[in-house]
């Protein structure tokens, strides 16, 4: 049996300041198996993969590859050991063409000394794309490709070198069903060739369908590792969550008031005929799969994209924002999905970040009122239980959870009428999550209407009063959030009623 283990991990541990990311992880992957690796956000999957990829180093523990001890200190070590990584984030160079991107970071075939052998490069790229059964022109820059094609290029890159073990981190999120089938076919081919595929995904249906064995992680440890045949969707979910759903969320104490926001069959390129109402103090969850138009819906309400048809009303007045600036002026605020990219200016101080959205209220005639700014900023920081010794520090020095609290402090400083939340706990560790949820409930109790989007269905089930499900930009169901379980929730996401 031991000979079958192509990769074995023994007692692996890793801690970051304040967080035990991995603890006593024991795990083995076998030759010729498709191995599912699942767990909630922050369960330790990414840390584990980063260690194997040589991006971060472990504190303790050993890794054996093919029976001998491996030291993976860099991404070169990892690829030399036969580990290939296909990431969910598409790190493509937009101006390079398809074949250049496929071979980016790998060794280019050479001829006559240092010159790239374009013929060989082209042939190899064609082989890889043929294997994936996709047709993408090789000579055009990646920037001209659709999102799906880009995803296929990123996947193709993982196949440019022949490895022993392929790690795929949410490879299918950007793919259509047809492309996904192609990917699964390729995965099967790899398995038949005796390779190992480690498949990391939040999509439990996919994982249950294609894998041979499943490992479930929670809070940095392996809680379960069994053949897929012995597991069901419910048993997987139970071991993923491992605790009572209610206890992860604070109690609601808001009583819904008047209608704050109303949309009448709003439409643009991504959103089709969505209607909704949100009352003061109410939390509306948006249910749906990745790519169903959830983020696009928030962007439309926040004025990033513009309305083609339909009407929106805010406190019974017409609402037609043309920019985030206009939306914020009307009291509509978005907590964006990409905290580091869209939510914060990491190189500036905590003071500056918290006050950035409300500068007009902290100045007279354009000149900053520093005393008021300091008082209001620190007050907002205290309200979100921000842990920092010095508000003059760069925001980039804070932990993920504290950074997200700074984003919330921006909204708390001047509470909005309508708050839009896109993945409010993304990348936040378990401990800080409860506090984020408490802040959301407190804002609701103060009369803010809230719309929340999340890929974490527990979050929607734990926070929302009612849920609007959308699929491909179209509304499917509006359901009161009572007696909903994960299975029914997912069925609604897929657009079917059970």
């Amino acid at each position, binding site marked *: 049996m031991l000979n079958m283990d192509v990769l074995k991990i023994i007692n692996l541990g890793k801690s970051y300041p304040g967080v035990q990311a991995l603890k006593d992880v024991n795990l083995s992957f076998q030759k010729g198996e498709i191995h599912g690796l699942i767990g909630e956000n922050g369960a330790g999957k990414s840390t584990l993969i980063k260690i194997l990829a040589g991006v971060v180093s472990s504190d303790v523990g050993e890794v054996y590859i093919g029976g001998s001890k491996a030291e993976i200190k860099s991404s070169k070590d990892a690829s030399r050991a036969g580990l290939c990584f296909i990431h969910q984030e598409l790190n493509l160079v937009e101006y390079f063409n398809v074949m250049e991107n496929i071979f980016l970071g790998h060794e280019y075939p050479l001829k006559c000394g240092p010159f790239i052998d374009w013929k060989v490069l082209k042939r190899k790229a064609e082989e890889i794309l043929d294997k994936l059964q996709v047709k993408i022109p090789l000579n055009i820059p990646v920037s001209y490709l659709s999102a799906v094609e880009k995803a296929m290029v990123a996947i193709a890159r993982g196949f440019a070198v022949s490895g022993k073990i392929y790690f795929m981190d949410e490879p299918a999120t950007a793919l259509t069903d047809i492309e996904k089938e192609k990917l699964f076919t390729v995965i099967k081919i790899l398995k038949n060739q005796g390779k190992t595929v480690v498949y990391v995904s939040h999509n439990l249906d996919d994982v249950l369908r294609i894998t041979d064995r499943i490992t479930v992680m929670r809070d940095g440890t392996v809680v379960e590792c069994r053949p897929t045949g012995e597991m069901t969707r419910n048993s997987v979910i139970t071991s993923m969550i491992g605790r009572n759903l209610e206890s992860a969320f604070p109690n609601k104490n808001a009583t819904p008031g008047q209608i704050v926001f109303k949309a009448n069959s709003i439409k643009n390129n991504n959103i089709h005929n969505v209607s909704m109402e949100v009352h003061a103090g109410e939390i509306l969850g948006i249910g749906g799969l990745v790519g169903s138009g959830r983020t696009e819906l928030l962007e439309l309400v926040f004025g990033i994209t513009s309305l083609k048809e339909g009407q929106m009303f805010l406190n019974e007045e017409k609402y037609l924002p043309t920019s985030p600036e206009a939306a914020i002026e009307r009291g509509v605020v978005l907590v964006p999905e990409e905290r580091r990219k869209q939510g914060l200016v990491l190189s500036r101080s905590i003071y500056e970040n918290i006050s950035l959205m409300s*500068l007009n209220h902290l100045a007279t005639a354009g000149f900053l009122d520093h005393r008021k700014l300091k008082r209001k900023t620190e007050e907002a920081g205290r309200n979100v239980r921000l842990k920092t010794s010095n508000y003059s520090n760069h925001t980039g020095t804070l932990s993920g959870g504290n950074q997200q609290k700074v984003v919330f402090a921006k909204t708390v400083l001047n509470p909005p009428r309508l708050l839009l939340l896109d993945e409010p706990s993304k990348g936040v560790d378990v401990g800080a999550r409860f506090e984020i949820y408490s802040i959301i409930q407190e804002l609701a109790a103060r009369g803010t209407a809230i719309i929340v989007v999340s890929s974490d269905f527990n979050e929607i089930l734990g926070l929302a009063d009612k849920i609007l499900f959308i699929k491909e930009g179209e509304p499917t169901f509006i359901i009161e959030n009572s007696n909903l379980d994960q299975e029914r929730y997912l069925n609604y996401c897929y657009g079917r009623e059970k």
Partner: protein
Amino acid sequence: MTNAKIQKKSDREFSSGKFIRTWGTLLGFILLLLIFTVIRPDVFPSGRNLKNVVEQVATLAIVASGVTVVMVTGDFDLSVGAIASLVGIVTAMLMKAGVNTPLSILLALLLGTGAGLINGVLISYGGLSAFVGTLATMTAFSGIALLISGGTTIFGLPENFRFLGQGSLGIIPFSVLIMAAALFSVYILLEQTIYGRRLYAIGGNSEASYFSGINTKKVRLLAFGISGFFAAIGGIVLTSRLYSAHPQAGSPFMLNAAAAVFLGMTAFREGEANLLGTLLGVLIMGVMGNGLNIMGINTYVQSILTGIIIILAVLISSLAKKKKV
């Protein structure tokens, strides 16, 4: 336990690195003053010479304070030299055509601001990169200056125009007062106003600024307008100082202003354009030029040394940063 130790160690490294990053350039400047004082104790530290230095850098400081505003957002303005030249020529031609001096100056200021706003429109609404956009307008503006002046120097300006660049209030040269006013107003703008906060926010993360309700395009547009305005003041003061207008008189501003801001980015704040830093950068360039002149070193060698100083300053501060990528 080990974690705490590592944390502490990196804190200490951080603080010594931070000291160099914050104060290194200022220490370098003081060292420069000491070196010149030791070499020429009779000439360099005299009140008259130091006044000379300040007077020489006044126009550069005015232009560089405008460029600082643009560089805070992470953009770049190569056109300030050409704007200064064009504004000088236009002021001179207006006065020679019989327009009175104050009105000529006012119109020239409007011209410079307008030229800056053209940059802003091209870059923030047209989507050109700041480098390409201002490189193109620089070429065009200097073409206009050469065309309307016929490529020659304009002499014979009215007597009341001399005061800006050559007059003085008490013992303080008037150009130095204008410099002080320019520096002070930009300092207030950057540090005390909403607009300043927005500039720095955009420089740090333009996308997050947009999501925070900042009209990033408008803010950047205005920054180029401000840069053009100060380039115009610099051009007018320079024309008055030379008491003549040459269609390429302002061209040294292009690189010197950028160099001063870059030098300033190595001082006081980590890698950020800031006004005190710009002032320090301007002074370093002025003192270098003056000191080397006094020592009788020829101007070509001076250029080489200035280049080396800039490389050293930026290198030292980026080494202290220990950036991995």
